[in-house]
């Protein structure tokens, strides 16, 4: 068995990060005027993603992971904060709709491969459209060539192009979704739980594919998951989210070996692990640091590659 590299191979790691997220927040309004209530889905979140880096965002359901991905994909407008990509302050320049340039830099892979591939179209459509929208005016032949290449990249045969999504297995579908994202040659792919709808046996395949893409093409990735083990498996950096807050972040293995924030610890202890010699008895729910630190926003640096949100003494 090959031991996997723990650091990204890209030489650009040291240069300015590809994505800088600063103080991002998002409020959702429930109900409508005058009976509105507000839910803060993302609270003052800041992080960076370097070129060629896989960053995992983990956390329990409803903690705001997808919201962050959707904001980065410009499917949602944030309530506040900055998004800087390649040094450009996106929300300041592109108020309402994302430009095609932005779209060609940032692509997304969704959780449910059934839902993200329109059942009415053939596989070919999903790959042709981005090529047509973003590529140069290709001749049909050049287009065919590109399609074949894309399919090969994600490990699918050319004959699949004529099929409809429902004629493919879940894993194959997710590969098509990845190929679609790749078609525009993006700089970063946002993958929102790309494996959680897949069968156990094919998950690893998809994770391996993602890692391969990073290794071979240098694509950055934001990998969103609630499966800590898989985050540890492919992500260089892991960030933990809890109720809208980013509570801890750091180099994946280091973070999981020495979790600092109580929520991270809780999360880790809850993962069933057959091989774990000893389990950690989960503390009672009320005692966890779920809502700790809201608004405090102060970070403790644990190592150059590991930080956590400061926890108020009483709940720590």
């Amino acid at each position: 068995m090959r031991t996997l590299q723990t650091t990204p191979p890209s030489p650009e790691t040291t240069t300015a990060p590809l994505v800088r997220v600063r103080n991002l927040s998002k409020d959702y309004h429930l109900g409508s005027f005058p009976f509105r209530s507000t839910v803060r889905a993302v609270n003052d979140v800041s992080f960076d993603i370097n070129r060629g880096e896989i960053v995992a965002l983990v956390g329990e359901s409803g903690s705001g992971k997808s919201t962050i991905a959707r904001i980065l994909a410009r499917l949602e407008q944030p309530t506040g904060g900055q998004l800087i990509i390649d040094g450009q302050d996106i929300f300041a320049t592109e108020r309402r709709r994302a430009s095609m340039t932005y779209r060609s830099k940032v692509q997304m892979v969704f959780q449910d491969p059934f839902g993200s591939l329109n059942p009415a179209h053939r596989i070919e459509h999903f790959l042709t459209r981005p090529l047509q929208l973003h590529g140069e005016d290709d001749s049909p032949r050049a287009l065919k060539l590109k399609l074949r290449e894309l399919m090969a990249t994600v490990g699918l045969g050319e004959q699949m192009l004529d099929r409809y999504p429902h004629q493919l297995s879940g894993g194959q579908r997710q590969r098509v979704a990845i190929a679609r994202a790749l078609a525009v040659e993006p700089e970063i792919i946002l993958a929102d739980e790309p494996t959680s709808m897949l069968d156990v046996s094919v998950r690893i395949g998809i994770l391996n594919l993602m890692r391969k893409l990073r290794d071979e093409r240098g694509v950055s990735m934001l990998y969103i998951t609630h499966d800590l083990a898989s985050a540890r498996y492919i992500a260089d950096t892991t960030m933990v989210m809890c109720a809208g807050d980013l509570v801890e972040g750091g180099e994946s293995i280091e973070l999981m070996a020495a979790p600092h924030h109580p929520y991270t610890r809780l999360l880790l202890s809850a993962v069933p692990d057959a091989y774990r010699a000893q389990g950690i008895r989960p503390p009672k729910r009320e005692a966890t640091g779920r809502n700790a630190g809201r608004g405090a926003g102060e970070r403790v640096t644990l190592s150059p590659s590991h930080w956590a949100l400061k926890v108020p003494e009483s709940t720590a």
Partner: protein
Amino acid sequence: METLIERDREDTGRAAAPVLSVKDLRVHYTAESGNVTAVDGVSFDIGAGEVFGLAGESGCGKSTIANAVMRLLQSPAEITGGSIELNGRNLLALGDEELRRTRWRDVAMVFQSAMNSLNPVMTIGDQIVDVFTTHERMPKKAARERAAELLKLVDISPDRLKSYPHQLSGGMRQRAVIAIALALKPSLLIMDEPTTALDVVVQQEIMHQIKELQQELGFSILFITHDISLMVELSHRMAVMYAGRLVEVAPSKDMLGNPLHPYTNALMGAFPPLSGPRVELTGIPDAPPNMAHPPTGCRFHPRCPLAVDACRSTEPPLLQVAARHDAACLLVSEQAVPSERSSR
């Protein structure tokens, strides 16, 4: 520290008659795209107080077995063979009314999605009370008191009796369903992926609760999940299923330490560990077989790294290959002794 289930209990109740005994069960689905034998000759026993796990990929027939035991299968599904004995009674021979009485009293079930298995327009309380009024002809008031006790058992405040399902969180709903399942103190509880809809922290809490309740009340559990790690933590004994057949049955510890079937082995390897070095995993290549046209011979052979020619043509029987350890693989059966049914 502790694991969820004490391994020592493996030996308890070994002599007693099994709570559930499934023999050579066959279930057939009639479908346009082709007829499917979703469960093809499955046999296993569950002893009193035993937690028996059933693992396998999606579509391999786990839920079908669970539903067959509950006699919930409806057209296009049909039980075409075998027997299901619950506490010595053949469930397949029961008439409608008898069956209705047996359900929930002797065997209860926790469904995969609590959200969908609770009637959205009835309060939790009413849905519990329903069980008592139907099976025990209990007056409403007494039933309500019992319902409150049940909720307390699963750590839900009794004033939630008046709540509707949508007013509870996912975890609470699932616990409410467990409470309903335990209402009549059944001897067997079937749990079909009871926690897949929940996130890890809540899952952990619920599993813990189930374990406590099981130890307290002593019922047996048929536990179904695709998450081997979870199953190994929870069950005494487990079976791995592939494409409608059992491929390996063994005490969980043995299964973990010494998986004999290549499929079991591959399945174990599909879960990245939380500790240790980062090693590359391979998963299982290709997709599970189309059950309408299962492969000949060993059904796993197209994906099996170790497959030999014989695998293509010869169906491997489930044979005892070690003490209380059965497997269905030509490669491991050479040293095996044939067993009539999976032993305990």
